[in-house]
């Protein structure tokens, strides 16, 4: 392995550790302090426990700040990892699932941290950072051979358009992950009445705003993909499963956007559609595992 590639992998290792610890901090903050109180009953035979009751109280914000700091660390290391790989390969690292997922982590962390700053809420980290850590775990489980750099096969050689196409896909998926986090927290916040979670209106808006980035991005993914297909194969749409999977995801978010105009559909139902949309996005992301077709050569 080339020294740069190895160093890039070490950076990824550091980022993985930072993501896991950051996720723990965020979860601790969102869940709050848990106090288990046991009720005792004094009987003539001694003390008997008759049950316990769990109480949650807000966690110190310092824990969340620590989570944010670690998330920034993770971003810095992951960005460095991708940068080194870019230098080593002489191209943007988006050629196989290892590279694609590594770059995805950078975009996801940027997206999340930007939203965290804009809205000034930290609890969503409790969902996004575990997702990021899960993605890192997935990268660790990929065959080690993918950590090496392969030359691209000829059809993928149109670098610019490929970078735009795939880069926009990463942007779309990461905003959908952020929207999912907002929707999930919305459902938690409204069902379990947790006082220290952000207001449902804020979470609703958070999810919507993420989709206002993700939906145009996914539209562009489909458009740029079509232009690319037209240039490479002479047909801009061929009903390839990977294309139609992305179209499926796109349609789910179109349904979501219509809920915004209807009374009674904002909030709860919208949040469920966002959860479903994210599942569709994951399905599209990992579609290569199920499909053959034109997109199969990326190598999963």
């Amino acid at each position, binding site marked *: 392995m080339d020294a740069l590639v190895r160093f890039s992998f070490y950076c990824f290792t550091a980022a993985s550790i930072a993501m896991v610890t950051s996720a723990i901090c965020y979860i601790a903050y969102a869940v709050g302090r848990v106090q288990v109180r046991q009720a005792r009953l004094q009987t003539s035979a001694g003390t008997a426990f008759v049950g316990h009751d769990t109480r949650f109280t807000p966690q110190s914000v310092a824990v969340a700040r620590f989570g944010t700091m670690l998330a920034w660390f993770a971003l810095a290391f992951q960005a460095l990892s991708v940068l080194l790989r870019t230098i080593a390969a002489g191209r943007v690292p988006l050629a196989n699932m290892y590279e694609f997922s590594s770059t995805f982590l950078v975009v996801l962390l940027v997206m999340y941290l930007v939203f965290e700053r804009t809205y000034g809420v930290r609890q969503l980290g409790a969902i996004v950072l575990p997702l990021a850590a899960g993605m890192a775990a997935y990268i660790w489980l990929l065959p080690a051979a993918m950590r090496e750099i392969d030359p691209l096969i000829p059809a993928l050689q149109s670098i610019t358009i490929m970078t735009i196409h795939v880069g926009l896909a990463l942007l779309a998926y990461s905003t959908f992950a952020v929207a999912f986090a907002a929707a999930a927290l919305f459902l938690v916040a409204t069902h379990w009445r947790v*006082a220290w979670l952000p207001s449902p209106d804020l979470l609703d808006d958070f999810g919507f705003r993420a989709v206002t980035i993700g939906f*145009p991005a996914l539209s562009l993914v489909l458009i740029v993909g079509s232009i690319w297909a037209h240039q490479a194969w002479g047909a801009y749409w061929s009903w390839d499963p990977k294309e139609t999977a992305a179209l499926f995801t796109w349609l789910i978010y179109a349904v979501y956007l*219509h809920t915004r105009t209807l009374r009674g559909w904002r909030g709860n139902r919208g949040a469920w559609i966002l959860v479903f949309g994210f599942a569709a996005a994951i399905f599209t992301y990992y579609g290569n595992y199920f499909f053959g077709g034109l997109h199969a050569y990326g190598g999963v």
Partner: protein
Amino acid sequence: MAQATAGQRIASRNPLEIVIDRTWRFFCSVRVAMAEIALLAVLVLIGTLRGSSVPDSIAVLLPFTRPVVDAWYAWDVFHSLPFMGLLTVISVAIAICTINRVPGIWASIAHPTIATTHGFLRNAERSGEITSPLSPAALATQSRAAIAKSGYRALADERQREIHLYADRFRYARLGTFPFHLALILILVGGIVSARWGFREMEFMLAEGSQRAVGYGTDLSVRLNDFSETYTEQGIAADYHSDFTLLRDGEPLESAIISPNHPFTHGDMTFYQSGFGQAVVMQITDVAGNVRFEDALPLGQFRSADNPEAPAAVIDVPTAGVSMTVIAPDENPRSQPELDQLNLRSGQMYLLLRPLGPSSPIAEPLAITLNQGTPVPAGDLSITFLRETRFSALQIARNPGISIFYAASFLLVAGLAVTFYFPHRRIRGIVSPTPGGGSKLVLAPMARRDWSGQQAFDRLLNNLETSLGAPIARIDRVTEPPAGAAGRQHVATSP
């Protein structure tokens, strides 16, 4: 609008009118549109999974589903009638929905209702209150100027000693939804135009030095001037180029060099390099010495039963009254030696001639082994294997819908960007006189349960405070969900 009049007149209307009205409302309903899009999504999912092993896994897990799974694989969803029908319904819905929405949206841009009620201001989740020693008219003028400074349009209307204010920004962005939705129809139109008037020739084989008509009703033909390829050290073709000329009615139009990923475009036609292979140049002359045929035959489209591994070609030559099958030496005779019955050597071609039509110069099929450069008589003809050459395989596609697709893509993305990034913000207010000759302005945003809208209102209030130089009392009626039942209530009361 349409609904209100419908309700009042329903008794006096004839059935046809009712049907038209119901249909119209069906197509205008966003709820129905959502159901249509959801159904489309389901069909797309069914079609997507058809390209995967998922249905098969279901059948393995639950054997009784096998017939359904088989039908699933057999159903070409994307070219099916239900799919096309649904796309048509959605297109009609978009068109009707647009016609229905334009007047209302235009009115809210051009002539918004300025008057509001004290009830609206009282019940708003958020509002701001300015008290001033100025007269109502003076306060209204001053506030309008200050609001306008923040990029809002501020309108006023006096009624019963009070002045009602309406302010908005990005009002034209509300039109963005129209190019977006119409782009969806345009994309389908582009697809239909391409399917109806376009073509896609996947295997257009052209030997070096020869010329061929493009066909498909065009008067174009293509001549391959030169073909070249480069190999990597491992002997894999690294790159290959075709230098060709496009001709109309035999007159050269344009020349170009194409390689994989570097196609050539002429109008709405695109020429792609897809592959290459071996070709053989054959010549047929008659007894008088006239050349009846001379062209290169690309080898490889056809494989002979006698020699399955060998490159071969078959062609009808009406000008000579024969059909020719040419088989080249097997590149890899070890592959199936028992089938290689021709034992051709390099520099030889096996030729099978068959009579074509009753006036053919040969009476019955002939089999000949040709040596390069040596003419062989066959009936009244003389046949020569001149030389070997290469052919280039092109793809030719004509996509007349592509420019519609580009235009639609632009409208789609631009429409979305305008709608999402320039949200129409609206504010209402009333200036009323206070005892003692002063006045009071209460402002509230039309942003129910809209967090961003309320933030935008807060920013506007901050700006107003600075430019008016007076403090603004802020009233916030949004109750953050406490650790009690209010949290639940928050959802239950969605508007």
